[in-house]
């Protein structure tokens, strides 16, 4: 546990050194947030609500979906792939540590820096120009905290698995781009999943995508209430555990392959 914490701490420091890049990303995220907000509002026209989301909800949704891009790394994360392709993975294998825990610890640092530098600041920026809605009770805030953490864990599990493809293919990057694009769309980052046709919503239940992001939105906006909240959290938790277990198993296979065939 101590090792995990020390790695997280240093990863946090490391990502802080890239704060210029994070802040540049912030401006972009903010701008696109406004744009998407305008498009969604045009879509609403005179209607006060669509698929259970009010105008205020959809404004807040736009802000949130931009604020969490960096935190969840939804658009793509290729660090593990890069370390496989450059051979840096060899250095990590020479250290007495579990690779998945190692990357997980680093991702905590990455996510925290992005949450604080991009996430929070983007929400503040939006608050200055539009009216956002907030959870009303301390308990709701606690739910939001849980769903945020679980959403990140699911996204990590997914990103990790996608990156593991690099052990098998010399060009997993192209595959990765496709996977991350799909995730962006199906997790509700581009549009709330409630706006999707029913059959698609049905299908998406069997994928981890909604658990990365859409669940967080639903809990934050209060469109899920009562036991539904706990069921949604449980669903996220199960996806997280499932993806991490599969990731660990694939990782072991990947490393075995690497040491037998030689990168």
């Amino acid at each position, binding site marked *: 546990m*101590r*090792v995990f914490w*020390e*790695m997280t701490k*240093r990863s946090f*420091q*490391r990502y802080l*050194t890239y704060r210029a890049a994070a802040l540049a990303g912030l401006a972009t995220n903010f701008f696109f947030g406004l744009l998407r907000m305008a498009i969604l509002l045009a879509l609403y026209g005179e209607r006060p609500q669509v698929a259970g989301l009010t105008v205020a909800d959809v404004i807040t949704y736009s802000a949130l979906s931009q604020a969490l891009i960096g935190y969840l790394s939804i658009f793509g994360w290729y660090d593990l792939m890069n370390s496989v392709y450059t*051979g*840096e993975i*060899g*250095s990590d*294998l*020479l*250290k*007495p*540590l*579990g690779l998945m825990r190692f990357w997980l610890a680093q991702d905590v640092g990455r996510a925290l820096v992005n949450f604080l530098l991009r996430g929070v600041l983007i929400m503040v920026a939006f608050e200055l120009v539009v009216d956002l809605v907030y959870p009303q009770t301390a308990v709701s805030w606690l739910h939001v905290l849980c769903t945020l953490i679980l959403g990140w864990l699911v996204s990590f599990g997914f990103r990790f698995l996608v990156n593991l493809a690099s052990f098998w293919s010399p060009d997993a990057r192209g595959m990765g781009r496709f996977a991350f694009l799909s995730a962006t769309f199906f997790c509700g980052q581009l549009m709330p999943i409630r706006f999707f046709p029913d059959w698609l919503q049905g299908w998406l239940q069997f994928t981890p995508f909604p658990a990365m992001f859409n669940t967080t939105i639903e809990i934050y906006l209060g469109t899920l209430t009562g036991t539904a909240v706990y069921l949604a959290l449980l669903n996220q938790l199960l996806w997280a555990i499932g993806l991490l277990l599969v990731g660990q198993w694939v990782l072991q296979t990947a490393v075995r392959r690497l*040491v*037998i*065939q*030689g990168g």
Partner: protein
Amino acid sequence: MITVQNLQKHFKLNKQYRGAWGSVRTLFSREYEVVKAVDDISFEVARGELVGYLGPNGAGKSTTIKMLTGLLVPSGGELAVNGRLPWRDRQAYVARIGAVFGQRTTLWWDLPVIESLELLQHIYHVPNGRFRQNLADFETMLELKPFLNTPVRSLSLGQRMRADLCAALLHDPDLLFLDEPTIGLDVVAKERIRQFIRHVNRERGTTVLLTTHDLSDVQKLCDRVLIIDRGKLLYDGSLDALQTRFGGRRELVVDLAEPYSDVSVAGATVVARENGRVTYQFTREEIGASELIGRLSQRFRIQDLAVREPDIEATVRRIYEERLLEN
């Protein structure tokens, strides 16, 4: 400490076809070429030894080190380090060894050196006191102070190598693997690294196996050398013995004070003679230098003389080129 028996590592490379149609063929082809990177190598290393693993580029040095550090599984043969199979229980095994790969760093690129070292302390569970003690020692010996707070990416190659050496030894491993630790360094930096390696071996009793394609590393550091080329072990022993066995002959150059008609002497042959200068060749087995000089000075008045040792570099080159040691 290290036992290697008939060790092999073969890489399968998909056969490449040329041309536009060829790349399609490559994709579907099941044919492959086998590269025998390490081909039937056996040796043992005892505790406390400092052994050089010498060979030209592509000889199979890195591949051997990778197998010894558990990064590669052999295709054949046996390999045990401290009675363990390196790749069997990777985490437990690497916790007890140190390794530095010259072309690559084990430190974190974006972190200041000291942060990396402290992180390694936790990863290897080094007690605080021990860590401080080791760090203080290495800091002086490797002169790390000036760049302890510099991010690894801004270090020069020599500085990075010194930081990496420190990192590899903080947990007091009793076995240290170095893959080309002096590659790309200038003479001064090389010398500093060598001194440190010697110190670690002598004072700490750390067993060291280092690979190099630079003969002077071996000459200055190692009592024992393993010469490898194209995956085969060509020689295992001391450089001196190598020299005696395959070396060219030693030379004695004599400036005679007076002209003599017959300058021959028993035990050596005259290979050149101009004006008053005569060059003799002789071998270590036949006659020692001092004895030869004694014989000469009895017969001639000598103004000046010099012994030329045979060029070991040429010897090693001959071993590679003429494959002297292959059976």
